[in-house]
């Protein structure tokens, strides 16, 4: 094959690759997602404050346990070098500041990365108090930081506009960001569901349809005994949990295909919202449900925020 043909092929593949990973999209969606993820980060950090001494404090439950879990391969955490509880509170307080600045969009990417590092430092100190929702929050924040997530709805954007105004320059047009963060969020969610689905598929209680019943039956995870008792104490309630089990199993296994095909995308997302809403109502899973549903925003049309703003302005002008 002549070299020119090979180069042509490489160029075609690269063009597709660039279109898939790097084509510009309007920045509104990423901006809104940054704000919402920032809220989750802030809430997680605040939520850990009351238990900080026991979970990561110098006299708490920490290094031995985490070190033996496998993170010893890449173990690092600044908490190992803070000998006093006041130092631990100060470090956690600084993490909260980074979270708030990420949410507000001041030096967005830097603050986002600092938030991820602070979150991972907690995990590295004591891996046992965090769950899948925490991991999802950490990963999704990192993906957002791969693009200029503060291009809109942020202090960064406001400062930039002010600077341009002072210099007598025209305001920037509609800002755009590479699509790569959205793609990673989409892939992360699809990968998470398919892995979860495969593991559930191998479990007898998921095959028999009793998994949701047993999940709600345990006081360790149940949000409220009186809230779930109508589902657990009656035949019809059990039938509902069986439907929930089967829908969850098949939906998780096929989520990737359902969102890939545009006609079924909305169906997949609506089922996801209902399932995660139900999970959050019935089970204690921290921010797992919110972080998952947050990820669904990456499957909406990439200019959904701009469309919404246009619609709102039009509605106001007509009114």
């Amino acid at each position: 094959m002549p070299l020119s043909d090979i180069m042509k092929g490489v160029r075609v593949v690269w063009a597709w690759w660039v279109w898939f990973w790097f084509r510009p999209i309007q920045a509104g969606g990423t901006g809104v997602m940054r704000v919402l993820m920032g809220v989750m980060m802030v809430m997680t950090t605040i939520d850990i404050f009351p238990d900080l001494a026991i979970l990561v404090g110098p006299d708490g439950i920490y290094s031995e346990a985490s070190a033996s879990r496998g993170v010893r391969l890449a173990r690092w955490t600044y908490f190992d070098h803070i000998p006093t509880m006041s130092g631990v509170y100060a470090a956690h307080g600084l993490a909260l500041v980074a979270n708030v600045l990420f949410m507000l969009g001041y030096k967005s990417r830097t603050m986002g990365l600092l938030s991820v590092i602070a979150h991972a430092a907690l995990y590295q100190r004591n891996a046992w108090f965090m769950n899948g929702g925490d991991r999802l929050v950490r990963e999704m924040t990192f993906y957002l930081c791969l693009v200029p997530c503060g291009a809109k709805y942020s202090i960064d954007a406001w400062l930039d506009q002010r600077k341009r105004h002072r210099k007598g320059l025209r305001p920037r047009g509609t800002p755009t960001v590479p699509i790569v963060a959205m793609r990673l969020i989409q892939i992360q969610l699809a990968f998470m569901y398919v892995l979860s689905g495969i593991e559930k598929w191998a479990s007898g209680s998921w095959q028999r349809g009793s998994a949701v019943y047993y999940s709600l039956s345990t006081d360790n995870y149940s949000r409220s005994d009186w809230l779930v008792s109508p589902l657990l104490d009656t035949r019809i309630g059990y039938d509902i949990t069986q439907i929930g089990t089967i829908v969850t199993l098949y939906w998780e296994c096929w989520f990737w295909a359902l969102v890939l095909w545009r006609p079924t995308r909305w169906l997949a997302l609506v089922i996801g919202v209902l399932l995660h809403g139900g999970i959050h109502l019935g089970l204690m899973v921290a921010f797992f449900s919110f972080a998952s549903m947050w990820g669904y925003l990456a499957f909406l049309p990439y200019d959904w925020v701009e469309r919404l703003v246009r619609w709102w302005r039009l509605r106001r002008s007509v009114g």
Partner: protein
Amino acid sequence: MIRSAYRVVMSLFLIAYLATGYASHNRQDETWGAVYRQFRWMHTTLCFWQNWGMFAPPPGSTSWLLLEGKTADGATVSIEPLMRPVGEDYFRWRYDRRQKVALSSYQKSRKALRKAIAKNACHRSKEAGVPVVEVKLIRDRTWSRRPKKRWADPEGVGRKKTTELGTFKCP
């Protein structure tokens, strides 16, 4: 120029990152195992694990971790658990991270975690003015009942079992 460099660097990152995610679930394979060993730092450094087997299988019981201390004169005292068992008609707003620690400690291989919990219990007991010389960890477990049994008697209680998870000397 900067945009092209960003795309090339990011492309290399994406390939390695996604390949590591896939390889983490195919570690037994010779090729993917090698990929995972080479690039696992991308996941381990910031703890981006890809383990998503939530509720597979679902828990079949409720367990509470109880802590029992022994003082220097041989008296047995109960120590405040990481999380108290819930009572009747409960409703929880907040995810209890202490309970997550307790739930993680039941697996047989996690002796280091149980030891860490005991060490912390020693510290808390000393702070409370009741120094102890050793701490015993006890798992109080109640199995969930099968649906038909529950419908027949909603107020009933499932099978119970208490297991000692080990006794640890205080430092």
